[in-house]
């Protein structure tokens, strides 16, 4: 039985539907992420899990128990709020002791429990400080420690890293992964940062306009987006308009109008003549003045339209013969070389037939 089960949950505000028939389940010990653009209903879903909002329809089950009649303070679920919501008049230690006191833990046992979790988040020497005497990253860790200290069944995190700068965020991501492994508590994590979601999660539910657009492991979401929204939202992705030219067998043929035919993995239910989109990650495309390619690779000509030097890699935007722009990248691993091509250079592209993913419609 899954630890958390969300069954066909709907939440409306007035005539606006914030969460629309969402069903998903989260296993115990999982790092589960809700990913989606601003306003897609992530926080609303999280607040329903915490008990601050009631679904208009559907059910939320925790350990198989219906939560609809359980108020937030009675749920074995704790939240790390985006603003941290640390109690400003309490020291770090007092903040962390708070949930233990509320749970009626014996007074004598509290200091040891607080110390233990402070050690987990490496804040032992800050126990006596007030929240405003801490840095953003330290506050973040206090908020996590406070939510973890009495070991909830489920920890909800609402964009916990969004207030931190890029460097610190990366550090905290690593810490979160380790912490989750260590404590073994199930995390439901909300973010609109796809990089963060890919880096942290066991599974990701990509949300769009209150619905789950795709629910899969990070690699699957990244490599095989199920629809245009996910392809576009996660990472850089080339979206090439194409038509089904031939089906049957272990490969199908697509026609990219004005460019030519190419092979791709077959798609269930595809029929000749149907149009759709070929999704292709930039790093899966090889680029050279003249590419040698084998039978498994698709091969096209084009010319460099734009270059973007990023340090570790250079992005080349290549114009295909039909005018479509395709993003590719080359690592700058060779010493001294940072630019292999200039604008308007003639180049050749190649990718393995299974590198792309064809979406019907």
């Amino acid at each position, binding site marked *: 039985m899954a630890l958390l089960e969300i069954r066909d949950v709907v939440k409306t505000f007035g005539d606006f539907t914030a969460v629309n028939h969402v069903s998903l389940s989260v296993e115990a010990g999982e790092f589960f992420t809700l990913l989606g653009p601003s306003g897609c209903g992530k926080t609303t879903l999280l607040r329903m899990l*915490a008990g*601050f909002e009631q679904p208009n329809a559907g059910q939320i089950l925790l350990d198989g128990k219906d939560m609809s009649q359980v*108020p*937030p*303070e*009675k749920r074995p*679920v*704790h*939240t790390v*709020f985006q*603003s941290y*919501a*640390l*109690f*400003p*008049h309490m*020291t770090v230690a*007092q903040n962390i002791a*708070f*949930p233990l006191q*509320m*749970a009626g833990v014996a007074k004598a046992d509290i200091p040891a429990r607080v110390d233990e979790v402070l050690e987990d988040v490496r804040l032992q020497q800050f126990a006596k400080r007030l929240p405003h005497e801490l840095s953003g990253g330290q506050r973040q860790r206090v908020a996590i420690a*406070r*939510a973890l200290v*009495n070991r909830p069944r489920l920890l909800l995190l609402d964009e916990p890293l969004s207030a931190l700068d890029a460097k610190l965020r990366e550090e905290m991501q690593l810490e979160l992964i380790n912490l989750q492994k260590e404590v073994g508590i199930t995390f439901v994590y909300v973010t609109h940062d796809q990089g963060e979601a890919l880096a942290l999660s066991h599974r990701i539910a990509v949300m769009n306009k209150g619905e789950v657009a795709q629910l899969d492991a990070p690699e699957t979401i990244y490599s095989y987006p199920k629809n245009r929204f996910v392809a576009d939202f996660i990472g850089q992705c080339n979206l090439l308009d194409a038509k089904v030219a031939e089906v049957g067998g272990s490969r199908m043929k697509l026609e990219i109008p004005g460019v030519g035919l190419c092979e791709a993995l077959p798609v269930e239910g595809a029929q000749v003549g149907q149009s759709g989109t070929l999704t292709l990650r930039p790093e899966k495309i090889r680029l050279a003045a003249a590419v040698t390619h084998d039978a498994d690779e698709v091969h096209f000509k084009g010319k460099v339209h734009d270059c973007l030097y990023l340090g570790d890699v250079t992005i080349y935007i290549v114009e295909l013969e039909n005018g479509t722009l395709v993003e590719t990248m080359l690592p700058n691993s060779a010493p001294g070389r940072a630019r292999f091509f200039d604008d308007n250079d003639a180049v050749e592209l190649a990718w393995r037939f299974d590198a792309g993913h064809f979406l019907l419609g």
Partner: protein
Amino acid sequence: MRNLSSRLSRWLISGPPLLYLLIFFAAPTLIMVFAAFRIPGDYGGLLPLLQTDDAGKTEVLINAGNWHDFITFENFGRFFEDSIYAELFLKSFWYAGITTLICIVLAYPLAWLIARSNKKTRDLLVLLVILPFWSNFLIRVYAWMIILGPQSYFSVALNHLLALVGIEPVSLLFSQFAVIIGLVYVHLPFMVLPLYANLEKHDMALLDAAQDLGANAWQRFWRITWPLSLPGVWAGTALVFIPALGMFAIPDLLGGTNSIMIGNLIKQQFLDSRDWPFGSVLSIMLTLSVLLMAAIAGWAGRSKKERA
């Protein structure tokens, strides 16, 4: 250059209010302190230290030999000799204290309600709280004399009710009860406003967090809202307790003979007995006792923080 001009502008800005305080607060306080050590004049006021004769020549009456006739510690002695003054102080503290307490209890839910309502209702409610200031203080107190008077509907209805349960009719006016009602009524807005200003700034996410971490409604109030509102409570307490302590008009109008406060006594000394030195002593003792209380409260607050 920059430094000089910034210093100059700082003085220009803070100068006028500083001067004002110096002339109208510090100087009178000092005069009062000196007055406390002097002797009442024959017809009130203070026994003069200088004398101007008809020709306009001024003569200094006090000198090294006779200063005992002009300067005395007796006024303070008188204060400590008779326990009646200390008792009156205690009683006044009690009145002011109970007034403050009632104001906190009444103002807190009201301030909370105002702080939590939407912008439009909030403005309206704040307006209603300060509305009484638009009419004269004495008129409002007189209104209470009528409300509490024996012929008022309120008194009549109350005594009817009491009669039903077999209790003797009561007279509300000219009693401790009336004084406290008056004090609470007059000072309530001064508690509501600072409390509202404080509660309005509270971050609602903290209450969500507390609830999420297992706190029920009472625990959320007692562990989060109340401690965070203490600055507002202290501000309101200062604004209610101190003026209430020195109040004389309300005990004069609503109180009976046994419900006078220290303010009445001070007023008596200056206006009726025309004993300025002793009036000054009483005023100084009042100021000192307030300062002492503030010091104790500050010290208690600090040591509590250190213990935490």
